[in-house]
């Protein structure tokens, strides 16, 4: 391979990932003018996992509940994250989310409306007020499409269906990325002064998952390998309501909007069991609580025929359901053989979101690698031990923009040329072509399937020391086998070859999930250990930070940042700000009617 003739591009700002966070970052980086900006996507433009977000974007605009405020959004997010979130990240987020949502309207997004003609907001689990700006049950798609058309109207270079396999360094600073075009397999080098990582999560490590094929954690794994710090990897969100039946669609998401619009959960004995687990918030409790409650009901023998709970919204009437949840109505009708306007349907937890990720600075999204910024699901800091529904769409807007600004500033002030040692590229070319030398090597699809089984059994919704240790051993064995993964055929659009790198990334991150889970000897948020069933004050003081070393993963305990007094006072309130003096209004009454 002659590196001299390899396709090479140079940009000031390189954004990896063309989902909501990536596009928002690119739009911001290009907004100032004068800097060259590129976005790289593993899929076609407009197909990223952001389209799967359904319920809405959380922002305290207060169009429906005027007592909502950034303080309440802050309170709810910290509480839901069980206080291991970075308080400053949450503060910035809660303050800026309203402006970011309104800005989308300026760019063409059309949210559902209130009777006053403003953006409609719906109730959601763990939010004290009706807060989620939404468009039926396809808010993520609206957001992504809006950003997509905004980006193509600007001077931004967009590379579609390009897989990045390695981040390139110039000494201790980021210098670009290496990858290949999926269409024909030819290599490409991107030199860049600043890189924004917006590559999403890694929910594909689990068997039952709402995540698309892309969610293989490429960005986090690549960043880890060049020395970026990854934090709170044990925190994986299981969404309470995935489809259960028929098996062909198991795991497919049923939006929390169903509960937000009044859906009720029952066990096989027709009991509304959430009244037992969270009498105050019931179905609109946080996702960790609802998922665990369904799991416990099934364990106790009160599950549905296929091992879940019943979710019923039929009492709201066909017109209402078809208007507010059109996508869900059709998905369950065509794929699940159930008419949700007439009958209840089975749901069970499905892997949904990874709260852990690349440790990012609260205001700039900077990582510990100079010039590398992280935003969206790949980043860590906002969600703590459990993410609130609707906070991810607001997250990608707020921190996508901030990462764009910071990358723009960094690139603008960086002096001199970006130098990438040729050896880095040569090594990577050899590594990426190796699977073709092993046409009869391990099948990456088989390794992936086995990994999913291991992670679901050993590091799923319920954990303990022994199962985790056994799981770790199995993952390490799979990592050994994976060194022998092979590919057949040529380099033209070859998913078997592409899968090799996806699987390597997932194996790296799976190990970190389990190591983090072993380290956190308590139960907190989404992390539930039966051998340590209680949340422990001592453990709540720490974030666990993973560092790559040639000898293996190193975990550091880093103190959770201490809140200033004013924010502590908000968190110390017995009731959410805005609700303390009230009669504790029933959220469910008249929601988005």
């Amino acid at each position: 391979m002659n590196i001299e003739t390899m396709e090479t591009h140079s940009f000031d700002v390189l954004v990896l990932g063309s989902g909501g966070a990536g596009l928002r970052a690119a739009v911001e980086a290009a907004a100032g003018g004068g800097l060259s900006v590129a976005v790289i996507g593993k899929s076609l433009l407009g197909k990223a996992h952001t389209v799967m977000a359904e319920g809405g974007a959380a922002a305290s605009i207060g169009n429906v509940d005027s007592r909502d405020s950034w303080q309440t959004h802050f309170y709810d997010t910290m509480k839901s994250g069980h206080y291991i979130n970075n308080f400053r990240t949450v503060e910035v987020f809660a303050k800026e989310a309203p402006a970011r949502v309104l800005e989308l309207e300026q760019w063409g997004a059309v949210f559902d409306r209130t009777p006053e003609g403003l953006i409609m907001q719906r109730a959601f689990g763990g939010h004290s007020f009706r807060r989620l700006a939404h468009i039926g049950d396809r808010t993520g798609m609206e957001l992504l499409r809006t950003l997509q058309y905004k980006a193509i109207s600007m001077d931004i270079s967009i590379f579609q269906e390009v897989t990045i396999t390695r981040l390139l360094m110039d000494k201790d600073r980021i210098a670009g990325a290496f990858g290949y075009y999926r269409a024909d397999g030819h290599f490409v080098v991107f030199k860049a002064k600043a890189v924004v990582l917006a590559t999403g999560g890694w929910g594909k490590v689990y068997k039952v998952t709402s995540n698309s094929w892309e969610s293989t954690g490429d960005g986090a794994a690549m960043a880890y390998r060049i020395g970026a710090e990854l934090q709170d990897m044990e925190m994986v969100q299981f969404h309470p309501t995935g489809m259960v039946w028929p098996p062909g669609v198991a795991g497919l998401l049923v939006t929390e909007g169903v509960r937000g619009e009044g859906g009720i959960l029952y066990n096989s004995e027709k009991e509304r069991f959430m009244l037992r687990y969270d009498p105050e918030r019931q179905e609109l409790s946080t996702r960790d609580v609802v998922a665990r409650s369904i799991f416990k009901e099934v364990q106790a023998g009160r599950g549905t025929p296929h091992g879940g709970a019943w979710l019923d919204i039929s009492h709201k009437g066909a017109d209402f359901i078809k208007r507010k949840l059109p996508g869900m109505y059709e998905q369950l009708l065509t794929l699940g053989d159930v008419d949700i306007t007439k009958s209840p349907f089975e749901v069970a937890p499905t892997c949904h979101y990874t709260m852990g990720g690349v440790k990012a600075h609260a205001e700039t999204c900077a990582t510990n690698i100079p010039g590398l910024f992280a935003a969206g699901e790949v980043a860590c800091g906002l969600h703590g031990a459990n993410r609130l529904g609707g906070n991810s769409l607001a997250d990608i807007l707020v921190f996508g923009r901030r990462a764009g600004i910071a990358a723009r500033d960094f690139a603008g002030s960086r002096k001199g040329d970006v130098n990438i040692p040729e050896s880095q590229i040569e090594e990577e070319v050899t590594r990426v072509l190796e699977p073709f030398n092993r046409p009869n090597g391990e099948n990456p699809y088989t390794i992936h399937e086995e990994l999913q089984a291991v992670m679901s059994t050993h590091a799923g919704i319920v954990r303990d020391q022994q199962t985790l240790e056994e799981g770790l051993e199995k993952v390490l064995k799979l990592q050994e086998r994976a060194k022998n993964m092979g590919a057949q055929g040529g380099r033209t659009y070859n998913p078997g070859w592409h899968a090799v790198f996806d699987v390597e990334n997932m194996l790296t991150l799976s190990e970190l999930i389990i190591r983090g889970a072993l380290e956190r000897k308590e139960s907190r948020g989404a992390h539930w250990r039966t051998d340590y069933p209680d949340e422990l004050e001592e453990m709540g003081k720490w974030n666990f930070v993973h560092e790559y070393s040639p000898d293996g993963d190193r975990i550091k305990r880093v103190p959770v940042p201490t809140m200033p007094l004013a924010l502590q006072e908000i968190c110390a309130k017995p009731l959410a700000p805005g609700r303390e003096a009230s009669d504790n209004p029933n959220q469910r009454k008249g929601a988005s009617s």
Partner: protein
Amino acid sequence: MSDQFVLRIFRGDQNGGEEREYYVPAIPGMVVLDAVHYVQAHDAPDLAVRWNCKAAHCGSCSAEINGMPKLMCKTRLDDYQGQVVHIQPMRTFPIIKDLVTDVSWNYEVAKKIPTFHPETAAPFRMQQWDVDRIQEFHHCIECFLCQDVCHVLRDHHAQDEYFGPRFMVKMAEFEMHPADRADRIPQLKNEAGIGMCNVTKCCTEVCPQHIHITDNAIIPLKERVADRYYDPIRSFFRRLGKKDESSQSVPTKG
């Protein structure tokens, strides 16, 4: 229910190819995309297929199943009980490999359309009934099945003369937004070639999002073009006023 399905999947690239037969065990509720994934994992790891969400949100897995343009993730295999299932790539776009086609032309077209251009700053005051009409267009997942089936593009290869149904929907979405002020009527008549559509409604039939592409997007836009250019009285006054539509960088509604 038989315990397996017989699939015939197109394998090949721009140099040609053929259908190959695969057998897939039947699992209740499985969709065509599941079967293709089974083949990929067990028989043909290099079988090229695009997909993302498997939930009809992303519009990646478009293909022609027994001759009908469909999303593979939304097409149940048990609908084909007792039949051989033929899976072919979309025919209107150049093939890359197997079920993957080069749809980049669509992204080129998208860039030509002036985006939403409001004259006032958000937040907007709009009633639900103001936006119901355009929200329908926002359902589009850009699967390009309408582009695939449109005979102007599929049979007459008039990609240089017509943007295709997807972009009529996109232009309708901007054009009918209550706050939009850009004027896309000249573009619709000329570069976008709305006159090429002769209302056979094939696009509406294949739309997995059930958008009434022809009735709600194309016909109203055709009416706007007709009002502007073919209304004899307006045409007379226009000639008197000599409005030059190309003089502004973003032409606005008159």
